[in-house]
């Protein structure tokens, strides 16, 4: 397996290297790294049974109101997918998918202000979701709604107060500090209603940085087993 340290686009042949589900991972990552403004026209009216509502900023208090059952459900899907892949002997493909995903996504989602904790939380949320979707895609979990939203530049935040919230992926860079207007969508229900659009974040192109990232949950060689570890860092 090729060792990648920096990437600005999915490497050639990634889909084939990843095996079954690799094409969906490739599609997700190409969408994520394409950049550009997300379009409200591409938003589905419903996510499950909930109306989709687009936000232009996400205050910290709102993040903590995301339905914990939804998050737990995603966590279960992630664990189930990872377990299935490991059981099928596809650990190398899982590691490659997560590694490439994080190499691409981490610089793309790097907060412009390193002290902006809200932007860091948004970034972490999207990275966590990307890692989850890589695993579920490879494992044949065919729920593509979240991957589709992410690929179109929308961060699926989750259910809050009876609506399914989404916000531009670009919030990971700008956070809430630079948002000039908080237009919370007014869509309620299905159909082609009056969904208000997202903010006008400044999506920067992919792959301009050098930050890299991990696949969450991937044991990356450090191990937690028996160690007679050295105490000193540099001797």
């Amino acid at each position, binding site marked *: 397996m090729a*060792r990648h*340290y*920096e990437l600005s686009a999915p490497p050639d042949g990634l889909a084939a290297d990843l095996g079954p589900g690799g094409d969906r991972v490739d599609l997700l990552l190409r969408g994520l790294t394409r950049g550009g403004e997300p379009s409200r026209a591409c938003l589905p009216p419903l996510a499950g049974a909930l109306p989709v509502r687009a936000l232009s900023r996400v205050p*910290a208090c709102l*993040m*903590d109101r*995301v339905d*914990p059952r939804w*998050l737990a459900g995603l*966590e279960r899907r992630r664990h189930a997918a990872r377990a299935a892949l490991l059981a099928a002997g596809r650990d190398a493909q899982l590691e490659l998918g997560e590694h490439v995903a*994080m*190499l691409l996504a*981490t610089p793309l989602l790097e907060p412009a202000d*390193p*002290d902006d*904790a809200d932007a*860091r*939380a*948004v*970034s*972490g*949320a999207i*990275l*966590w979701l990307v890692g989850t979707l890589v695993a579920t895609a490879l494992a044949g979990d065919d729920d593509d709604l979240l991957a589709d939203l992410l690929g179109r530049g929308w961060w699926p935040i*989750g259910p809050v107060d009876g609506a399914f919230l989404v916000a531009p992926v670009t919030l990971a860079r700008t956070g809430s500090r630079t948002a000039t207007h908080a237009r919370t969508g007014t869509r309620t229900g299905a159909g082609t209603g009056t969904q208000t659009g997202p903010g006008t974040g400044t999506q920067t192109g992919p792959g301009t940085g*050098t*930050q*890299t*990232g*991990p696949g*969450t*949950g*991937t*044991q*990356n*060689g*450090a*191990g*937690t087993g028996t*160690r*007679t*570890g*050295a*105490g*000193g*860092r*540099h*001797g």
Partner: protein
Amino acid sequence: MPRTLETVAGADEARALGDEYVTAVGKIINSHVRNEAAGAAVFDEPSISLAPTPREKWLACRMAMEEYGHHLKFNKLAAQLGLEDPHTRPPLSVFDFEVRSWTEYVMTKAIVDLAEIVLMEDLCECSYLPLARLCRSLMPEERFHVRFGATTARRLAADPATREEVRAAAHRLITMTLPFFGRSDSPNNELFRRWGIKRLTNDECRAEFVRRSRVLLCDDLGLDYPEVDPRWRGTTS
């Protein structure tokens, strides 16, 4: 060894200086390759599921990515120098600390990452410029990690329900982190300073860590500080 050595621009210049310089700077780089990965795998990744709120979960995820990213960046430097695989050596003993709760994770960020900052600040002035530049570029993230740990620790220490857990974790982690800086009589450190790779002795780094962590515990959190020996004579096996 040239006493006038100021900076080394890259791998070719490092190799031109000879094996001793490459070996010395390679030890530092490989230590970071190994231990940044260990930190992500042992502390950060398992803690994502311990977070009490979505926002904290996502912050933990971001920090896990950043730690792993640091590992990869040091790994790239190692590859440029043609260093051997650093995973043949075990990670530092501080990673034997098993994170069992969110509070304990918070304290790893406040204390272990503080130790990392002390080391990295010294390396920001390293004679090997690729390493110095990398360390400077990583400082904002490391500082954020420590600030996250200290800020959250303040809230947890103010809560009677978690105050004792904060104290216990802090004491254990400080004690386990002291060897992190290396032996007091380390011949490696002497070599690093001769080549301008490091400026401080291991004991000076340790003393700085004790000073800063004492401010955190005693001044910020209102806790006592564990009894510690500012010197470390341990072995590395």
